[in-house]
């Protein structure tokens, strides 16, 4: 059955959004995570990514229509597939341009083949609490599961945390507390030494699909370059001593990458079949490991930020990312990504591109290494950078030049701050 793409609810206050522009035609093939439209909310403009892969069967509304949140605006499936007939729910070209939702039967989506209709907040809470959306009684106007419906499953905060961690579906457990409230003692404990099947969180599901899609569709090459960060480390310390700014090596890398992307714009482009799309903004995604899976919070317009702004924002979005408190717009729209595994002592790796970006930079551990200088051996701090790039866009020499630029900036860190 065809899957609905709904008008997303990206904030508590958001009630409706405007379809600014369709980026895909009916009949186009759409991959998971591909941007199919631009949506304007009361706060910002955002890319609407498809949660499904297939053919864009129907655009329910033309560009310019205002649509209430959670209402299906497009259908994706296989050509010839039937689309539920009870759409559209919004009358077009109403007076004063006000949307008038039509009372209709809830959109029915088969849970076996399709996705349970739910608001993004409901999905997030379900992911956090280990509750299966299919088992939740939906109260949404159009049959979608709302955040409050997920929260209505009665369990203690501790039980919710344990369920989320172990993948237990709380709605299937008969609670021993008042009115069936689930306590931690009600959650079955897998005996030690037995295999456990733990449901993936939504983040893990999406990450898995995107990673697979990435390696299957992008011809990737990884190059390593050693970088002497001795000076950088000294400067980091003196910045800390003199201004109190607690910058990390990662902050310098982001700064250097943002600068290098300005100089090598192809590294900041997207391969689009027979053309390259040069992205006008430099938005850097930072891979962050969280308890629920891998997140990539986005530092927008990184090239426009002063070093102290960059340090502050980076720390803020990483912390909020770990706490699961980032808004949808802070997790989308990156044009280039960085993945740092240096803290684990890794000296080289081949990161996988976050599609549709052209590259991803892996940051490795800093090691004390001997180097020759004027015929004598000196101790230097050496960090390896591992760059994976899309070979359809970039060739080996070009990527090497990009890496050299990043290296030169990091080895002469004063240039980063002026």
């Amino acid at each position, binding site marked *: 059955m065809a899957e609905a793409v709904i008008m997303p609810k990206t904030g508590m206050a958001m009630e409706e959004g405007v379809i600014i522009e369709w980026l895909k035609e009916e009949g186009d093939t759409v991959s998971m995570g591909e941007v199919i439209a631009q949506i304007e909310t009361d706060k910002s403009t955002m890319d609407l990514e498809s949660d499904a892969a297939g053919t864009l069967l129907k655009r329910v509304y033309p560009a310019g229509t205002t649509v209430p949140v959670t209402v299906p605006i497009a259908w994706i499936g296989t050509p010839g597939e039937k689309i539920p007939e009870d759409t559209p729910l919004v009358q077009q070209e109403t007076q004063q341009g006000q949307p008038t939702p039509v009372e209709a039967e809830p959109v029915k989506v088969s849970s076996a083949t399709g996705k349970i209709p739910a608001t993004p907040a409901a999905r997030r809470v379900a992911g956090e609490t280990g509750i299966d959306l299919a088992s939740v009684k939906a109260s949404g106007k159009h049959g979608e599961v709302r955040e409050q419906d997920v929260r209505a499953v009665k369990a203690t*905060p501790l039980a919710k945390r*344990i369920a989320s961690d172990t993948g237990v579906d709380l709605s299937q457990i008969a609670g021993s*507390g008042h009115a069936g409230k689930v306590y931690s003692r009600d959650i079955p404990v897998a005996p030690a030494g037995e295999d456990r099947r733990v449901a993936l969180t939504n983040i893990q599901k999406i990450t898995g699909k995107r990673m697979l899609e990435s390696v299957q569709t992008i011809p990737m090459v990884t190059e390593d370059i050693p970088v002497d960060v001795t000076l950088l480390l000294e400067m980091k310390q003196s910045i800390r001593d003199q201004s109190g700014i607690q910058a990390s090596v990662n902050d310098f890398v982001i700064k250097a990458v943002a600068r290098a992307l300005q100089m090598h714009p192809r590294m900041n482009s997207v391969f689009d079949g027979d053309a390259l799309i040069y992205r006008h903004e430099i938005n850097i995604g930072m891979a962050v490991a969280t308890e629920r899976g891998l997140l990539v919070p986005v530092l927008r317009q990184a090239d426009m930020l002063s070093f102290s702004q960059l340090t502050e924002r980076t720390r803020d979005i990483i912390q909020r990312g770990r706490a699961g408190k980032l808004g949808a717009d802070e997790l989308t729209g990156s044009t280039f990504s960085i993945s740092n595994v240096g803290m684990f002592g890794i000296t080289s790796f081949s990161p996988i591109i976050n599609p549709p970006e052209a590259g991803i930079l892996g940051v490795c551990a800093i090691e004390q290494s001997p180097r020759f200088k004027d015929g004598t051996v000196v101790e230097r701090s050496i960090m390896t950078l591992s760059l994976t790039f899309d070979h359809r866009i970039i060739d080996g020499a070009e990527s090497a030049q990009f890496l050299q630029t990043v290296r030169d900036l990091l080895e002469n860190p004063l240039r980063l701050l002026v």
Partner: protein
Amino acid sequence: MEKDIVVIGGGPAGYIAAIKAGRLGAQVLLAEAGSVGGTCLNRGCIPTKYYAQSAHTILELAQGNDRGIIIKDPTITVDMELARKGKQKTVRKLTGGVRSLLSAAQVELVQQKATITGNHEVTLEDGTVIGAKVIIIATGSSSMAVPIPGIDSPLTVTSEEILDLEMVPKRLVIIGGGVIGIEFASIFQAFGSDVTVIEAQPDILPMFDAAAVTSLAKALKKRGVRIYSGSGVTRMETLDHEARLTLADGNTIGADLVLLSVGRKADISCLSDQVSPAIDHGNIMTDEWGMTSISGIYAAGDVTGRRLLAHAAYQMGETVAHNACIDLRIIADERKKFNLDIVPSVVYAVPEVASVGLSEAEAAASYDTVVGKFPLAANGRALASGEPEGFIQVVADRRYGQILGVCCVGMYASEIINEAALAMKHELTVHEVAETIHGHPSVSEAFKEAASACIGQSYHMI
């Protein structure tokens, strides 16, 4: 005469069991040889709290000058006769309340000692035989004696007898550094006695967190209380109106009065040769539902030896009454188990010490723990009240933030511990406590801060 349920003992376990069963519709008789309310109301919790408050008031008055309160004649003495009268008034009010509650629940109260003479038969002191479908034993506990040569002296008192002293002893020696001993040490030091505590174990209050015990011991020592731990009393001699105690290490201590508070033992004097349920270490054994080894006979409270606390007894009393009414087909419900996993315990000394759940050391033995500790010296309410001593400590599991144990020392510790118990019982983690707005200024804020500190979010602490 035949009753559905005969409850023996009118303390916290017994009177709650009787009220609960009476309210559910059972025909209940409660036999209590003394006054209803048991040790708690008559000889324990309530009378000692009356004196503990007096001690607190005396110590507060001593601070008066610092606060600009001028007290012209600074001599403070305690008239034990008036103190006793005040205490008795409070006790009478409370026991009167219990009698009204029993009466409203249609419970028949007889003021007689009762003996169990058959599996379904109780005989009163006056010879009356009462048939009982179910018997609930709630006879509590009494002060334990120890075989120290010479301890049987007119100068030795129990924790019950010390409540009715006619005057404040000059030199009081307390044998036993448990909760009762330490509470009386704090009370009589404030009343003007020269107090010495002797504890045979290496530390006083062994069931509390080491940090809390250290903090309390320090405060007591500062007030002049001497604490000898790790050395028991081997001999006591009585000469006229003076006692001389010899310790295991050879030291001798003089005393005008000796309080023996080395623990309590179950009172099983209601049993007879005809009826003898299984006994373990002097306590009546029960299963999780409160049933003894004899079907139809339940036991609840101190007599079971589970937790010797009035509030634990309330829970046990209610549980056995519920289960007995199911046996009698008065109600149809699921049987309940004794649930004593989260039981706060408090030392009403100055400063107060309270704890619930596992100690830091116990928790660390089974969990990957994280500890959040907030000093009352950084709490506005405690500082403004002139009581900056103490802290609140939360021990949580690192993975889920489950609160495993909470320990409070200082102002209002006895009240704040109940907030911790509520959170633990219903599985709020440190995350939820940290998110809860606490009124400001209040000492309870320190609980929120300690919970927040477990997740690195205490903003009032470096």
